[in-house]
Every structure is written in C-alpha cells, then in structure tokens.
C-alpha cells in the first residue's frame, strides 16, 4: 500500500511542479517583455 501511494504521489508531484515551473517562467518572460517595451516607448 505504501509503495502504491508513493508511486502516485511522486508522479503527480512531478507533473504539478513542472506546470508550476512553466507558469512561473511564462510570467517572468511576460514581465521582461512589458518592461523592455515600456523602456523603449519612454
């Protein structure tokens, strides 16, 4: 039972941490683009 639960927990932890990483990187890039654009406009 312990191994069975561990398998599922590890799998979903991996997937959710990857989604979290993608979202974090996306927001960071979007902010950088917005900053660069505003600097150029200014």
């Amino acid at each position, binding site marked *: 039972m312990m*191994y069975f639960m561990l398998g599922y927990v590890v*799998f979903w932890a*991996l997937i959710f941490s*990857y989604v979290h990483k993608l979202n974090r990187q996306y927001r960071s*890039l979007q902010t950088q683009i917005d900053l660069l654009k505003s600097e*150029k406009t200014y």
Partner: protein
Amino acid sequence: MKLLLLTAMAVLSSLVTIFFFTPEEATQGIVQKIFYIHVSSAITMYLGFFIAFLAGIMYLLEKKTMWDEIGSSAAEVGWIFCTAVLLTGPIWARPIWGTWWTWEPRLTTTFLLWLLYSAYLFIRNAFEGTAKRNLVSAILTIIAFIDVPLIHYSVKLWRGIHPTVINAKPGQGGLPDSMKATLTLTMLSFFVLFGLLFRQRYRLEKLKNRLNEVKEG
C-alpha cells in the same frame, strides 16, 4: 481553459477507474496499480520524443523556427514523462523484484534515453541566444531518438527481467480485458495531459523568441 477542463476530466475518470473499477492483480496486489501510470507515462514519453524527432527532421529540411519550438517543447515534456517512468518503475520494482534498480536491458536503455535528453536540454540552454542552437537541437533530437526502438525491443533482443505484458496473451503474462480497458483509458488521459503540457511549453518557447526579438528590435 477547454483543454484544462478536458485534461482534468480525463485524468480524474482514469484515476477513478484505476482505484474503484479495476480488479487487483492476484499475486502482486494493489501495488500493481502503479502499472497504469508507469506504462502510460512510457507510451506518452515515446509520443513526445517521436514528435521531437519529426520536428527535428522538418527543421533540417525547412529551417523554420516553428519546428524548433515544436521540437524543443515536445522533447522537454517527453523528458518529464521519461523522468516519471524512471521514478514510478523503481517504486513498483522494490516490493516485486526486491530491489529499486537493476541494470537489465530495458531499464538501462531507458536510463540512457533520459541521459541523452538531459544532455539535449543542457546543451540547448548552453547555446541559448545563438544561431547554432536550433541546428544543434534538431540534430540531437534525431540522434537521441535512435534509443527509443532499442528500449521497445530490448525485452525481445536481450534477456532481462522486465515483463512484456502489452502484447502477451491472457494467462501467459498478458492482461485481462478489464485491465486493458483501464490501461487504454489512462493512456488516452495521459495523451490529453501531454497536449496540455505541450501547449504551455510551446507558448513559453514562443515567448522566449518574442523576448529576443524585442531585445534586438
């Protein structure tokens, strides 16, 4: 949003089927249920690396950035599923084989694949912002893909302890229909999950290129 909803529904329905509607395997018991996520992750990993392989060929032929964006996104999501295979496999192996890891053909070739695509991701980062990056990435995805058929046929080519259950008949190590149906459902839900992750990663890759354009322009 629609894809997120579809993924959530597909994954939930497969989990409910695994936990409540699929019988426990007679000798291994409940731990055998890791099989559904382990095998589905492996097939999804093949899908990701196959898309990256095709995109690599297309990039070499057409030199369009789009193929690099598709290839790198598919390779990275495929690498995530490869990591899942290498994590869930040992967790299942420990109670059944009595060891977390053994250097048998399928495990070794899968670990080699993980190393190849890890090197690909590392090299791609090292070449970030250079003209060579897309070309090197395309060549690497094509070379690394050679290991995929090796993994698939390793259980037939060399002696190992890893089971072949997909093509085996029931009673000879094969799956009964109820388990086959659950495996198919889980695989389909993982394909949808792959689609969601791929879309997010592709958007990120496009944004990276957009940032480089803004910096240059």
